[in-house]
């Protein structure tokens, strides 16, 4: 509680036999925050959520809520409520009875329950569906009932486990906005689990990126996108190009010169102060490149590399160019603007120059084997896996 921390995981681990589902996680969530756990399938997000809800006992560590150690409390004594991925609405109860369930268990006065349920029905705009059974309402409505059923308990933290995963794209976007509104309205802490970076980016105050049971990075959506701390984060969040290199020289404290095979020396921001001689990856996002026929000015911390266009894909919002320079196939994204339409567009097989500012590249130390694997993925794959939610930030 010292510095406004509201929910804390302290060195929490959970093993299932050999599998380290959650591996020494420490995490602090502030009061009222919309906090997301983001990571690929099987990285331990659900397990961490279930530890907080009380369905799993951690093998090590503690969970503190509002300064109180709740690690050993049974689920029904915790002031947290969960929205399950499958909603888990009670099929034998109507919408109204489902929402009332938590208060009925508390044996609250009938009149009070009726009023609270009515308030919730208004909040989720389902007053006219109150007498229906769950099998007679749509997926989005089930979702809203699940939210109301949890919110009526006035939890200190609301846990959401991939609540939108079962909905189609259109509905998902609408529920995304509704969730955001509800969060603003009720003002309680949301802990949101997802593997969809677009969802996490657009909703969260802060995001924890998880991988293999550990937390790779915690930060605001902007920090995570612009300043990834590991190549896993860089590749998982949005689209990126990786270049293998070595630090050759430190320039003026904050910048370093890198040697990359087949490239001229490039300048890169080095806030992590990686020292000379270390192997690194340079990560540059496709939209950070500038592409042109004429050689742009160098200097002013701009890097320029010559390349040949291998593919041009028109994507509506932008055009994606696959260009080759040495052994690298680089993804470059360029947004359209009105005046560019007058220009002769860049075509397949043309020789071009790509340039980027030193601040737009990120150096990542190569330290784990999973990084090696990640980087060796062909860039197309990375683009496909993560391309969907791009630009949602």
């Amino acid at each position, binding site marked *: 509680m010292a510095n406004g921390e509201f929910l804390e995981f302290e060195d929490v681990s959970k093993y299932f036999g050999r599998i380290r589902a959650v591996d020494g996680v420490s995490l602090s969530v502030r009061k009222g925050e919309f906090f997301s756990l983001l990571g690929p399938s099987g990285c331990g997000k659900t397990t961490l959520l279930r530890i907080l809800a009380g369905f799993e006992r951690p093998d090590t560590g503690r969970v503190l809520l509002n300064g109180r150690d709740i690690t050993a409390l049974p*689920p029904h004594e915790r002031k947290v*409520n969960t929205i399950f991925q499958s909603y888990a*609405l009670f*099929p034998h109860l109507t919408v109204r009875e489902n929402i009332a*369930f938590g208060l009925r*268990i508390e044996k609250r006065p009938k009149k009070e329950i009726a009023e609270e349920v009515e308030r919730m029905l208004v909040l989720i705009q389902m007053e006219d569906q109150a007498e229906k*059974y769950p099998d007679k309402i749509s997926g989005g409505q089930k979702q809203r009932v699940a939210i109301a059923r949890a919110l009526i308990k006035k939890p200190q933290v609301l846990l959401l486990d991939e609540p939108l995963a079962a909905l189609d794209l259109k509905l998902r976007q609408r529920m995304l906005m509704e969730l955001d509104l509800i969060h603003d309205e009720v003002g309680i802490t949301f802990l949101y689990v997802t593997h969809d970076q677009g969802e996490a980016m657009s909703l969260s105050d802060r995001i924890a990126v998880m991988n293999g049971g550990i937390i790779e990075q915690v930060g605001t959506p902007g920090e995570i996108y612009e300043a990834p701390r590991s190549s896993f984060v860089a590749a998982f969040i949005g689209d990126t190009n990786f270049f293998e290199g070595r630090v050759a020289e430190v320039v003026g404290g904050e910048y370093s010169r890198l040697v990359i095979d087949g490239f001229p020396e490039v300048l890169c921001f080095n806030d992590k102060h990686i020292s000379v001689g270390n192997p690194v990856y340079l990560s540059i996002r496709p939209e950070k490149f500038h592409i042109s026929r004429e050689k742009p000015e160098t200097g002013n911390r701009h890097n320029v590399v010559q390349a040949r266009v291998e593919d041009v894909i028109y994507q509506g919002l932008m055009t994606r160019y696959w260009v080759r320079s040495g052994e690298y196939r680089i993804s470059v994204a360029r947004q359209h603007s009105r005046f560019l339409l007058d220009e002769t567009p860049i075509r397949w097989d043309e020789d071009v120059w790509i340039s980027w500012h030193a601040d737009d590249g990120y150096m990542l130390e190569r330290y784990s084997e999973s990084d090696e694997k990640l980087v060796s993925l062909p860039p197309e794959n990375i683009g496909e896996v993560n391309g969907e939610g791009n630009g949602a930030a």
Partner: protein
Amino acid sequence: MKNRRSVLEILVTLPSALWLAIFFLVPTVVVMAIAFKPTNPYGGVGTGWTVATWLSLGNPSYPAILWRTLWLSLLTTAASIVFAVPVGYYLARIRKRWRQFLLLLIIVPFWTSFLIRIFAWKVLLHPDGFIKKGLVFLHLAGDGASLLYNPWAVLLVMIYSYVPFAVLPIYAAAERFDFQLIEAARDLGAKQWQSFLKVFLPGIRRGLLTAVLMVFIPALGSYLIPDLVGGPDSEMIGNKIAQRVFVDRNLPHASALSSLLTLAVLLPMTVVLFLPGRRGRPDLMAGEGK
């Protein structure tokens, strides 16, 4: 399109409908008809029609027997359900390999003749059997007391015989039950027993209903069990029917008693099944849930 489908449906259901009609409906009607026939001295049925048999059912020994049949069957049903619900819950939760093994244990007794299993109980409960001796040794029973030939022996063996019929449908329902609903209830503040009562039991109610019918109906018609382990004070309606057929050779009387039993089962069942439930509620008899 729709028409073709319904034709197909009729074709597919026809064999079982015919089977039911020939082997179930027709015999029932025949039995009911015989109840309205006079007797003949050779144990057959006479000519003409009469309601005399029905009037003779007022025999003062019947109400006591009917009452005993009813309470023995109800107790058997209740005990079987109470036993079967935790077993079904447990079976649905354990690992698959164990589950198959335990299910096998439940089914294994059926590989032995029903008659032999009841005789086995006669041996177990015999005055010189080890159960009796054990109870006497523990001063829980007097030396002269008999474990056999009383209504309690009948009840015990009935429960033993019918429990599997309760376990199987309840297990089947529990296996389809979404146990995340229990977590949801716990999450919303329910203690373990509350989530069991308010979510698990309603969730398997179709299985419960099936189990009740599967135990109660055959229990009402029990005849071998009271005959073998019961005494004169533990006769059930089934014994009376058998007696009318084999000893008194009075077919119409036996038929009247059987009809009475059939009606006693059918009437409450019809009421339960066709009672209008709460509107829109997933119906008990509707097809499988999701």
